[in-house]
């Protein structure tokens, strides 16, 4: 019998801890498949962060480092400078990348650090139990915003892909979602492109993936995918915000 589908070689056999219906597992799969298809599992070093992504070092088959909260882009910088021929990626959530780690991600982009940030935006702190994230929508309830996020008190959610796209060193910034088969296929294309551009030396690359957190959103997995499309996508539009693939040539 022909094998039509199997677990990516980019993943280990470790049992993942994610809640039922959570799309972290999908994003892990997409990154792993991209590494496998580019044949770079053996020359990739990943950086896990803090949050639901904390155990990523057990799940990816490539070499991995675990970083302090928000510091993954700095750790990745250290790795990339030592191993410039390796692909280096960070795997970060919205609390990690868009709150505590804003300085690190902005300056990694500013330096045009040749790394790829895989940014999982599910508009909530998952691991710690549903606190408000910088990407939590106005009116969206969280354990630290029990009446819903209020603009007066906490401001409006931050759009990281757009913000980073304004930085010259950012070679590629795209926002995708993992909500249905078609969007998942597109998401993988974006991840693969980001790695390809990194390997071509174009600069900093980021793929922001709108994801679900059924547990902390208080929704079933199916309801969560609908909620994502109806609420997250209007505020966080999908698309390519920076594509400076030719940047390297231009600056020569």
């Amino acid at each position, binding site marked *: 019998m022909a094998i039509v589908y199997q677990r990516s070689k980019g993943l280990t056999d470790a049992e993942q801890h994610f809640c039922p219906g959570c799309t972290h597992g999908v994003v892990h799969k997409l990154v792993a498949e991209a590494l496998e298809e580019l044949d770079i599992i053996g020359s990739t*070093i990943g950086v896990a962060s803090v949050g639901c992504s904390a155990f990523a*070092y057990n799940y990816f088959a490539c*070499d991995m*480092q*675990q970083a302090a909260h928000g510091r993954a882009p700095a750790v990745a910088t*250290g790795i*990339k400078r030592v191993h410039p021929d390796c692909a280096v990626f960070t795997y970060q959530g919205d609390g990690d990348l868009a709150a505590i780690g804003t300085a690190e991600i902005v300056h990694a982009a500013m330096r045009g650090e040749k790394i790829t940030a895989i940014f999982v935006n599910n508009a909530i702190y998952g691991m710690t139990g549903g606190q408000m994230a910088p990407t939590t929508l106005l009116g969206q309830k969280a354990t630290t915003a029990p009446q819903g996020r209020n603009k007066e008190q906490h401001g409006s959610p931050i759009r990281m892909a757009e913000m980073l796209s304004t930085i010259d060193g950012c070679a590629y910034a795209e926002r995708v979602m993992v909500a249905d088969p078609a969007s998942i296929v597109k998401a993988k294309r974006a991840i693969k492109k980001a790695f390809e551009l990194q390997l071509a030396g174009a600069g900093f690359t980021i793929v922001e993936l709108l994801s679900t957190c059924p547990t902390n959103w208080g929704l079933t997995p199916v309801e969560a995918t609908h909620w994502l499309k109806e609420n997250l996508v209007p505020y966080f539009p999908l698309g390519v915000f920076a594509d400076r693939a030719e940047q390297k040539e231009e600056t020569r």
Partner: protein
Amino acid sequence: MAKELWKGNEAVAEAAIRAGCRYFFGYPITPQNEIPEYFARHMPEHGGVFVQAESEVAAINMTYGAAGSGARVMTSSSSPGISLKQEGITYIAGAELPVVIVNMMRGGPGLGSIAPAQSDYFQATRGGGNGDYRTVVLAPATIQEMTDLTQEAFDIADLYRIPVLILADGMIGQMMEAVEWKKPKPRKLPRKDWATSGTKNAREHNIINSLFIDPKDCTEHNKKLQQKHDRITQNEIRFEETMVDDAEVLFVAYGTTARICQAAAQKLREAGVKAGVFRPISLWPYPEQALYACANRGSVKAVVCAEMSMGQMIDDVKISLSGTKPISFFGTGGGTFPTPTELMQAAQDALKGV
């Protein structure tokens, strides 16, 4: 080899390059700016990498990433900046990474002053970060000694997979002294087969990590770290004794203060007072037994602990001497330093008190 005149900050950077350090991540802060500046100028000549980070926090985490990738790597700062690095240092200790960190101490607390001080002793030896961890702390008193200890620091870091802190002060960083570049004694160092360098599809993946979510695993990890700390305590204690054989009053001081104490002890002897100096070089592990033996050799009547702080190392002096000798303290914090005259008076007062 001929002696050369070197500024402390530049000498420690050159010593690191000579020790094979090829990666430096830093952030400006006075009085250590010549360290990143020296690396910025000279790393390219050696095929090395200098990155000016966006913060001390980022710099220490870049250091983590590079050390985890198998490189010899250094970062440096001064007191407030070292506070910012504490998070990274505990992660480096937890993940067992070899890293060398330089702290050219200045006055505190807070922004304090930019003048030389020794008020980060607690932070350096007790750990400013969370958890049960240790950093090896080496405290040079001269620029020559700092260059010698830099090679040692990298070797100790690699040998035990532990962060090593070179704890000096703005005085040592800013002044110039004669340096003779010595060939270091070679140590047999373990291969870094744990580093992330890409599996090349030839081995299981390597993981650099300080997270042990199962408390049983975390307890085992802590036991393993403790065994390592015990080995270091057995093997890496350093100290220097000056004129202690018949000393009646014994100064205990490190770094810059120890040099001033040595001058004071000499002058006391000229005035007929038998004074000596015990100088810990490794502040962790602390030379507890050696200090006990030195102070309890029979002649010592009084011990004077002197620091450029309001009294921090004195805790270790008290622990070491376990109540066997009267201990007095002379300290000056915030960026000023004791004069030999003040120290002579402190020694004479201590002798009068017994």
